[in-house]
């Protein structure tokens, strides 16, 4: 446990050294200001536009942290061969995988928290400027839940990025595959619904789609931006099951990463 915590801390510090937090802070301030200006261009539902922009910024920046920094941090140990130095210490391979994962998750979480805070400030400012356009059922709880579920989808992507980094030991390939996974994950539900409707679809093709929907995570399930924008009611059961769905997916991917890493020949 101590080793995992130590590795997490080192990974997080590496991220901080990259000045990523400074960049995120800058993005947060800029987008909050832009949020207020952009929202005024609309005639109705101003708070919805503001929530859309704020939550999209949170997701986008989280994705940027994973794609531009996270994958780089993960693959650096392989590419610069510092992995030998780490593993020569009393650190088991599974501890290395978990330590790196939690460090990155913490990094992404910090980015989400900073941007989430500034987004909320932008939304609040819009609501104060135009109080008649706040939806009657608007709820900050749903806004926070939306950020939490957005974070959960980012954790899933972090786990996937780590698996592919361990599999390929190349940052570029890992980035490419993780980006593809993100794209597929966002559309899995739409595709599945299309095939649920369509009669006379080729059975092999339908089977393939079914497999894809099991292998790739349904990232749309974690997107609560619309609900947050309009204060639409959410079912507690649905939220719990979605969280279990995401977390169990992360555990599976981490277990697979450990399996792959333990069998990997590093010399």
């Amino acid at each position: 446990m101590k080793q995992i915590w130590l590795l997490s801390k080192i990974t997080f510090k590496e991220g901080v050294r990259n000045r990523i937090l400074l960049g995120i802070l800058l993005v947060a301030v800029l987008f909050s200001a832009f949020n207020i200006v952009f929202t005024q261009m609309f005639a109705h539902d101003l708070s919805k536009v503001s929530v859309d922009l704020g939550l999209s910024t949170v997701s986008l920046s989280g994705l940027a942290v994973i794609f531009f920094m996270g994958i780089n941090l993960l693959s650096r140990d392989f590419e610069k061969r510092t992995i030998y130095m780490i593993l020569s210490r009393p650190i088991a391979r599974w501890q290395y995988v978990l330590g790196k994962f939690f460090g990155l998750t913490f990094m992404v979480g910090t980015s989400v928290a900073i941007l989430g805070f500034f987004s909320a400030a932008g939304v609040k400012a819009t609501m104060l400027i135009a109080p008649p356009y706040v939806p009657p059922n608007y709820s900050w709880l749903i806004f926070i839940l939306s950020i939490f579920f957005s974070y959960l989808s980012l954790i899933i992507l972090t786990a996937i990025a780590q698996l592919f980094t361990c599999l390929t030991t190349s940052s570029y390939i890992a980035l490419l595959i993780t980006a593809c996974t993100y794209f597929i994950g966002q559309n899995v539900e739409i595709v599945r619904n299309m095939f649920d409707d369509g009669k006379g679809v080729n059975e092999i093709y339908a089977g393939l789609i079914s497999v894809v929907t099991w292998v790739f995570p349904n990232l749309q399930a974690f997107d609560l931006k619309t609900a947050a924008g309009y204060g639409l009611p959410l079912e507690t059961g649905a939220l719990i099951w979605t969280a279990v769905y995401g977390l169990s997916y992360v555990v599976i991917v981490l277990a697979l990463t450990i399996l792959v890493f333990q069998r990997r020949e590093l010399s």
Partner: protein
Amino acid sequence: MKRKTIILTSVLIVAIALHVLARFNTDNHRTDYVYRLHASVLPFPTEMIKALAGEFKGMVANYLLLEASAFIGSEQSPAAGAEEWDAVARLMDQSSQLDPYFKSTYRLAQTTLPWEVQKFDETLAILERSKEHRPWDWEPGFFIGFDYYYFLNDRLKASEKLMEAYTVPGAPPFLITLASRLASQAGHTRTAIEFLTAIYEKTDDERLKKSLSDRIMALEGVVLLQSAVDIFHSKYDRYPHTLDELVEKSILPDLPVHPYNRTYTLKDGRVDF
């Protein structure tokens, strides 16, 4: 090593079992989303946009609507051809499909598409989508009723739609008055003025207020001219050749001002703007 593998395999099995269970439960809870997709049967291009937009559908919907409103507010719109207006209608439809909850979309569609380019079906499709997704909002149902009445001349359907809109909690009581008046076949243009005045009084949006007051002014001009034409007809047993004849024969002191800087039209004894 062996112990570790057993633990890892056990964790994996438990996680997979939990994941399968969670997946089925998540799918069950997401049937509502499936329903929403069914409700918005999309042509291929919109589906493509949806897929590309991913989780940023709301943002893309805002952008598309901004494109449409920028065109409508521009100087090009009065001179625009059918092709441009088709594109504007498509933008609004795509925006509405990407985000069927957005109030700005149906408001913009209602205040432009049926008036400027007689796109009644397109407007009704957007309004129906908004009505379905905004069960707390009486306005889409109200606009549907208005469109059936004023543009499609179907008073019975209009009355039905207004009554439906009245069932939304918080709907103003004038809806039911209008609905009943329609059912008893009230005058066409005057009822339209009442509809517009009612919505004018309810809105705080200055831009919409200006658009509505222009529309009301134009319709009041039609009412004034139509009654003058009717007087002319009863006096001379024929309709005037031009509207200026009404002033020449001293039935009207002046022709009413047209808010859109056009002239009122007269065809077979019916005045329009």
